[in-house]
């Protein structure tokens, strides 16, 4: 691929947007325009690709417009959007993750030019087509490679997620996320974050909680019902019995498939994709069952971090993942506080009995 093809490329490797407290479009590198028009690569067929569905409000920051919608209604909201059509939105919480996916694609295309095993980002929004031009202008402005979208004009996007064989759906609407989970699609709710710390620009890092994210919530139920001691006993006793799978297991699997493609070209030590397990389980006792379960599924995780109940924040700060999935808002909020892009997987027993957050917030009052 030529050096001029989209400013995110350098001669050697990907240039993942490093998001600091400075807005990314102020980054000088973003201002580069290709000097010669190059042919855009064709999007892969949905059944071959790893499809990530993102809603408009997680890809871009539409807080102001959302307020207009809530306070003044749909017609005013549409009017505002159309009036500001040429004004691009600023990045939302999923933006850096999407940029990182594109950078991985660039590398995959270099190594396997004929393969369709790539990430494909599809914009899945409830918005009416009136907002379409502003969204397209924004995608152009940020030079994102998004060619597919569904603007459903108020209808549910769930059917379209299935039609695209969506592997992961990210949205600001917890109801849609829950609906997707019920249909067997990995999904998580994202929130606008005040602080987003800088992330690696050479490696896509994805971090997962264990119970009720990669694994089912079966053990968490035991902990909630019978307490910690019983939980440890149970896990030790069932060490060799694999846990049931959780909603994000298949997404980890998809990442693993792409990782193997890099390994195949000798890029194991510095693989452009790295995965993490960040769990409250402890290495000494309950951790073993988690690792054995992954092994029984034929899945690898690059780093398993057993916190034995300690807060996840400091560990996440060390790892700096592009995205972190957890089923408990307590952890999601904790991660957001240190600037990790964290999303909530509304699945399992924790949803019925929310743990109070650091700021004494409960799950139900999560920002949309």
């Amino acid at each position, binding site marked *: 691929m030529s050096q001029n093809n989209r400013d995110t490329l350098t001669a050697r490797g990907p240039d993942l947007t490093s998001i600091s407290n400075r807005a990314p479009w102020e980054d000088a590198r973003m201002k580069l325009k290709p000097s010669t028009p190059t042919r855009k690569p064709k999007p892969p*067929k949905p059944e071959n690709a790893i499809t990530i569905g993102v809603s408009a409000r997680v890809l871009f920051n539409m807080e102001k417009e959302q307020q207009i919608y809530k306070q003044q209604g*749909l017609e005013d909201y549409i009017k505002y959007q159309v009036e500001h059509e040429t004004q691009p939105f600023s990045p939302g919480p999923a933006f850096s993750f999407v940029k990182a996916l594109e950078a991985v694609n660039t590398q995959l295309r270099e190594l396997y030019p004929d393969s369709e095993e790539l990430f494909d980002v599809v914009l899945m929004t409830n918005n009416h087509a009136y907002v379409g031009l502003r969204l*397209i202008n924004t995608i152009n402005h940020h030079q994102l490679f998004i060619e597919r979208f569904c*603007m459903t004009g*108020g209808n549910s996007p769930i059917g*379209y997620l299935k*039609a695209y064989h969506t592997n992961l759906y990210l949205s600001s609407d917890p109801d849609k996320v829950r609906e997707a989970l019920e249909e067997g699609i990995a999904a998580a709710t994202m929130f606008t974050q005040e602080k987003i710390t800088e992330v690696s620009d050479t490696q896509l890092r994805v971090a997962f909680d264990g119970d009720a994210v990669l694994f089912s919530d079966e053990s968490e139920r035991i902990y909630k019902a019978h307490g910690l001691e019983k939980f440890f006993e149970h896990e030790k006793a069932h060490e060799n019995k694999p846990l049931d799978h959780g909603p994000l297991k298949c997404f980890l699997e998809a990442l693993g498939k792409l990782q193997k493609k890099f390994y195949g070209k000798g890029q194991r030590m510095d693989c452009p994709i790295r995965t993490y397990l960040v769990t409250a389980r402890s290495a000494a006792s309950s951790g073993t069952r988690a690792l054995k379960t992954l092994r029984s599924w034929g899945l690898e995780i690059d780093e398993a971090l057993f916190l034995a109940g300690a807060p996840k924040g400091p560990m996440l700060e060390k790892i700096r993942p592009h995205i972190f999935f957890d089923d408990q808002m307590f952890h999601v909020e904790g991660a957001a506080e240190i600037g990790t892009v964290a999303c909530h997987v509304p699945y399992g027993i924790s949803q019925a009995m929310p743990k109070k957050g650091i700021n004494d917030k409960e799950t139900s009052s999560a920002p949309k």
Partner: protein
Amino acid sequence: MVSTIQNTDVKQKEADRAVVVAVTSRAVFDCGADDGDEVCEVGVAFPLLQALQRVNERLLEENPSESLLFDVVLITSDSQQQQQSSRIISSTRHHGLEISSFCFSSEEDFTESLLKNNVHLFLTTDRDEAAQASQKGVFSALLNGKVASSEQLRVVFCGDAVIRTDAEPPSASQDAAQSFWAQLGEMRRRFGMLDSPLSLVLLTSRGGRESCGTALQTLRSRGVNMDEAYSLAGAPRSPILSLLRPHFLLINHLQD
């Protein structure tokens, strides 16, 4: 020979304002072979006619003297159905369909019947018929063979055909298409964003976001604002189409 019978049960629409939609009777009624007097079974176009009727009802609710309404005419061109003309008319009455007139013609001159009746859109399940009508400058579309279950009239524009290459002069059929879209756009503007009895949906199959964006802009410049937009960029169409549930698909030259 072409003959037109007006339906006296239905208030006739204003000729120069109404959007005349012609549908083949074969698509609306399944009359079967027998000569009995029984009411015909309904065909694949029946939900479409009900949806068109609902749009008219809502338009009149907004404005009782509205003249931009759908004017539905039934075209019967095959001899078998011609013999059932009285059954067709009585079935129309029975099902309470708002059909303004019945046009009977032979297979050879059914296009004449379309032109005589100033048809803006011709709907059929027969691809050849649609092609023939299109050649004569009548905007034609294929009916969705699968019965659409939505109450709302859902019209899908295949956007890859919206952008005309300026090199070619517009064909009569393309002009007809454009004026139909403009009429639909005007009709859609009679209603608010929510709870509209019709929804205009743009679907671009081949191009990416740029071609979808251009289509949106082109349509808007012609006074047609879309409710929904889908850019497939080469992804398979049929799973998306089955979710969109269009009553009919508007494409330029009946390709793909």
